C-alpha cells in the first residue's frame, strides 16, 4: 500500500515537473535571472536604478544609448531657441496599450511630478515656485497642444541635454488609481515594448509584447520576457544549470569560478567605490547641531600626505581580484563608461601623478613620514584614533579588514578602528558625519559627468562647522572638499555646450580632485553576466537603459 502511494506521488511529481520544464524550451520567451527586483514600477515614484525594468513598460521621449547617442522614441522633432533656453518638442502619434492616445501633456505631467525636484528646480523657469507651492503646473513646462510641449530653462544648461529620459504618464489615469498606481499590472498604463502580466514580489515579473508599441514591428522580437529574481546563490546556480533561465545578469562572485570565468562577460556598471575622508572636522547631532570631532583628528584627515599614504599602501588590483573579482580596480573619480570620440573619456584624458593600482609600500611610508613631520608627531603611536565606517556586508567587511591589516603591517598604523554597521545605521552615521573614513559608493548617471564632479563642490560656499551651523544646510550636504578654483571651473561647465572643451575642463577638474586627493578610489562597480549560446544580440539592459533586448533573439534550443 505504502509503495503504491509513493509510486503515485512520484509519478504525479514527474508529470508536473516535466510540464513546467517544457515551457522553458519555447523560442519566443527570454527568461532573465535578475540580481535585484525593481523597487517600484510607478514611473512617478521611481527612485532606484533597480527600476531599470520599467523601461520595458514605458516609452521615452528620447533616450541615450550606451554610446551616448540621442535616440528619439516618441519625439518627432526637437528645436532649441537661439539663446539655448527654450526647447520645443513635438511628439509622434502613439497610444498606450489600453488605446488612450499619448499627448504632450503626459510628458509635462511626468516632468513636473518626477523630473522636477528641489535639487534641480532652479534650472527651470518657475521651477522653484512649483516645488515650494507643491503645484501641479510649472511656468516653464507646458503643453501648447496635444502634440507639442515647451520646456524653458532659466539659463542654458548642458545637463538638461544630458537627461532626456522623460516618459509619458497620463494624469487622469494616475489620479483615478490614486496610491495604487504602479502597484499591480492592472494599475499601470503601457507605452513601452512590453506589458506586465504579473509581478510576484520576490519571485518574478512576466511580460508579453505590447502590439501597440510604436516600434513593435521593428524591434523587440522576443514575445515574452520573464524576469526571475532569486536572492539565494545556490538557487541561482541551480536555475541556470536546469535551463530555467537564458541569461543571468550579475553572476555572484561565488558562481563565476563554477560557471567558468571564460564563459562570463565582465562589465562595469558606472559606480565608483572608494574611501571618503571626513575633512569637515565635525559631526552633527540632532538638537546639539555641529560638534567638533577633535582638532587632532581633523588635522590628520586634512593632511594630504596621510591620505595618500593610506592609498599607496594598498595593492588595489590584488585586493579587488581576491575579494570581489566582478569589480574592477579603478583609479579615477568618474564613470569608466563615458564615451569620448572612438574611445572613452577615461582613456582619452589620463590623469597625472596617479597612485598606481598596485600600490607602492616605500612611497606609502615616505608619505606617512612627511605627514608625521607636518603634523608634529614623533611616531605613529601618537596619532589619534580614527573610525572607519563601513556596511556590515561580506564584501565591505573583507575590504575594510584587509585594508586595516595592510595599513598596520606596512605603515604600523594601529589607530584605525573599523566601525561596521548594518546598512541603514551606516547610512545614518554617514548622513550625520559620524565617521572619519567611510566606504562611499558614488552612483552615477553615465551620461552626466557633471553630476559627480559637482559632488565635490563647496556646498553653499561654506566648509566649516560654524558656517554650516549658520547656513542651515543639512549635515549630509557638508563639503568634504573646498576649492574655489574647482568650484568656478565646474560651474562654468554647466553653460559650456562645446563638448570637446567641456570634456577638457572635466579633465582639469578631475585632475584638481586628484591633486587634492579628496577621495581614495578603490574600484569601479560592475559584474559578470552569462548568456546561453542560443541567445543572440543580448546587451546588458542596465547599460542600455532597458533597450538592451531591442534586437535580442532566442534561437531554437
Amino acid at each position, binding site marked *: 500500500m505504502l509503495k503504491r502511494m509513493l509510486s503515485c506521488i512520484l509519478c504525479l511529481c514527474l508529470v*508536473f515537473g516535466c510540464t513546467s520544464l517544457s515551457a522553458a524550451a519555447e523560442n519566443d520567451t527570454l527568461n532573465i535571472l535578475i540580481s535585484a527586483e525593481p*523597487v517600484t514600477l510607478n514611473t512617478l515614484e521611481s*527612485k532606484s536604478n533597480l527600476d531599470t525594468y520599467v523601461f520595458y513598460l514605458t516609452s521615452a521621449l528620447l533616450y541615450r544609448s550606451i554610446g551616448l547617442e540621442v535616440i528619439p522614441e516618441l519625439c518627432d522633432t526637437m528645436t532649441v531657441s537661439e539663446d539655448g533656453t527654450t526647447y520645443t518638442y513635438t511628439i509622434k502619434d502613439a497610444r498606450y496599450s489600453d488605446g488612450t492616445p499619448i499627448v504632450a501633456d503626459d510628458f509635462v505631467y511626468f516632468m513636473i511630478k518626477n523630473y522636477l525636484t528641489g535639487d534641480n528646480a532652479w534650472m527651470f523657469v518657475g521651477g522653484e515656485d512649483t516645488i515650494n507651492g507643491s503645484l501641479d503646473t510649472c511656468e516653464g513646462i507646458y503643453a501648447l497642444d496635444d502634440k507639442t510641449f515647451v520646456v524653458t530653462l532659466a539659463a542654458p544648461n548642458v545637463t538638461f541635454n544630458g537627461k532626456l529620459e522623460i516618459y509619458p504618464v497620463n494624469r487622469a489615469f494616475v489620479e483615478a488609481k490614486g496610491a495604487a498606481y504602479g502597484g499591480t499590472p492592472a494599475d499601470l498604463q503601457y507605452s513601452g515594448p512590453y506589458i506586465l502580466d504579473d509581478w510576484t514580489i520576490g519571485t518574478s515579473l512576466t511580460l508579453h509584447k505590447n502590439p501597440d508599441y510604436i516600434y513593435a514591428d521593428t524591434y523587440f522580437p522576443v514575445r515574452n520576457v520573464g524576469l526571475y529574481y532569486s536572492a539565494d546563490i545556490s538557487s541561482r546556480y541551480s536555475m541556470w544549470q536546469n535551463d530555467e533561465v537564458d541569461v543571468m545578469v550579475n553572476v555572484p562572485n561565488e558562481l563565476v569560478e563554477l560557471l567558468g570565468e571564460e564563459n562570463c562577460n565582465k562589465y562595469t556598471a558606472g559606480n565608483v567605490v572608494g574611501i571618503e575622508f571626513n575633512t569637515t572636522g565635525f559631526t552633527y547631532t540632532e538638537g546639539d547641531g555641529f560638534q567638533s570631532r577633535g582638532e587632532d583628528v581633523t588635522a590628520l584627515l586634512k593632511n594630504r600626505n596621510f591620505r595618500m599614504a593610506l592609498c599607496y599602501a594598498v595593492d588595489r588590483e590584488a585586493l579587488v581580484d581576491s575579494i570581489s573579482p566582478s569589480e574592477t580596480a579603478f583609479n579615477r573619480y568618474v564613470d569608466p563608461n563615458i564615451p569620448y570620440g572612438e574611445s572613452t573619456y577615461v582613456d582619452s584624458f589620463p590623469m597625472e601623478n596617479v597612485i598606481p593600482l598596485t600600490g607602492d609600500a616605500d612611497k606609502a611610508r615616505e608619505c606617512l613620514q612627511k605627514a608625521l613631520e607636518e603634523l608634529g608627531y614623533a611616531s605613529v603611536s601618537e596619532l589619534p584614533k580614527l573610525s572607519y565606517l563601513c556596511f556590515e556586508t561580506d564584501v565591505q567587511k573583507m575590504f575594510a579588514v584587509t585594508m586595516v591589516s595592510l595599513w598596520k603591517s606596512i605603515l604600523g598604523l594601529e589607530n584605525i578602528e573599523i566601525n561596521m554597521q548594518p546598512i541603514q545605521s551606516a547610512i545614518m552615521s554617514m548622513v550625520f558625519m559620524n565617521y572619519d573614513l567611510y566606504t562611499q559608493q558614488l552612483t552615477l548617471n553615465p551620461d552626466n559627468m557633471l553630476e559627480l564632479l559637482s559632488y565635490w563642490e563647496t556646498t553653499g560656499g561654506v566648509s566649516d562647522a560654524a558656517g554650516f551651523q549658520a547656513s542651515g544646510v543639512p549635515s549630509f550636504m557638508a563639503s568634504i572638499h573646498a576649492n574655489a578654483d574647482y568650484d568656478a571651473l565646474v560651474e562654468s561647465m554647466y553653460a559650456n555646450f562645446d563638448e570637446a572643451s567641456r570634456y577638457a575642463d572635466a579633465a582639469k577638474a578631475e585632475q584638481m580632485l586628484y591633486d587634492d586627493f579628496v577621495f581614495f578610489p578603490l574600484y569601479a562597480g560592475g559584474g559578470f553576466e552569462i548568456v546561453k549560446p542560443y541567445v543572440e544580440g543580448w546587451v546588458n539592459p542596465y547599460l542600455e537603459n532597458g533597450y538592451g533586448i531591442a534586437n535580442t533573439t532566442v534561437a531554437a534550443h
Partner: protein
Amino acid sequence: MSLLSSVSWKGWDSMLRYILRRFLISLATVWMIATICFFLIRMLPGNPFIVANPLDMTNAERLMDYYGLSDPLWQQYVRFLGNLVHLDFGYSLAHPGRSVNDVIIQYFPVTAQLAVQAILFGIPTGILLGILSAYRRGSGLDYGTQMLTILTTAIPSYVLAALLQLLFSVQLHWFPASGWKNFSYTILPTICLSLGLIAGYCRFMRTLMLEVGQQDYLRTAKAKGLSNIRIIVFHQIRNAILPLVTNLGLEIAGLLMGSYVIEKIFSVPGLGKYFVTSINELDYTMALGLVVFQAVVVVAANFLVDLLYGIVDPRVKVA
C-alpha cells in the same frame, strides 16, 4: 425535561462565556503585540526612503512628510490604531502602489498552500513512521528511522534545500529549482518544510507509543483477546495522539507565518520572506501589518486547538 434543558443551557452558557473571555484576551494580546512592535520598529535607525539612494536626502525628507512620518510619534500611533480598527494597514513604503492588505490577500494563500501541503505530507508520514518504529522497536526499520530523523533535524534547512535542488533540479532535471508558477514549483519547498515535521512527529509519536504501550489498559485489551491492529488503532494510537494535538496548534501557526529561509531559497512569494525584507527595508506599514496579521493567526490557531482538544479528549471541559 426542564432539568435537562437547564443543564444543557448551563453548558452552552459557560462555553459562550469562555469563548467571549478568550476573544477579549486575544484582542488585548494582539493590541499589545501591535503596540510593542510599533514602537520597537521606530527605534531602528534610519528611514525607509534612503535605502535606495543614500545621497538623495531631500527626496527622502519630502517622502517622510508625505507619509506623515515626520509627525510626532504619538500622533502616528493614534493614526495607526485608528487604521487598525478599520483593518486598513495602509500602503507599503518600500513598494509604492502595493497595499498591505493586498499583499496579505495575495501572498498568504501561497504560504498557506505550502503549510497545508507540508502538514498533509509531513505529519501523517511522521506519525506513521513513529508508529512503525515503535511497533518494530529495535529492528532495522527502527534504527533506520531514528538515524533519518536525527539527520534531518541536524542538517539546516538551507543545506537540505540546496541538496534537494542539486539532486532534483541540476542532476535529475525533475523539478524546477526556484520560482512559483505551478504545482511542480511547490514540491521541493514542500519536501524541505516537511522533513522537519516528519522527524519531529516521528520521534514524538514513537516515544508516546512506547509510553502508552506500558499502560495497564493495553494489557487488559490483550487479555480480552483483541487483535494487535485493534489494540494499536483504537487504544494505543488514540491515547498517544492527544499530546500531539497541543503541539499541532503551534506547528500550524508557525508554518502559516512562513519560512524565511525556504521562501528565500526557492523564491516563494510567501509572507515569511516579505516579513523579513519589510523589516530590513524599514517598511513600517508592511512590517506592522504583517505582525498584526500573524499575531491574529497565532492567537486564532491556539484558540482553535484548545477547542479541538475538548473534542479529542472528552475529559477536557470548560471549567
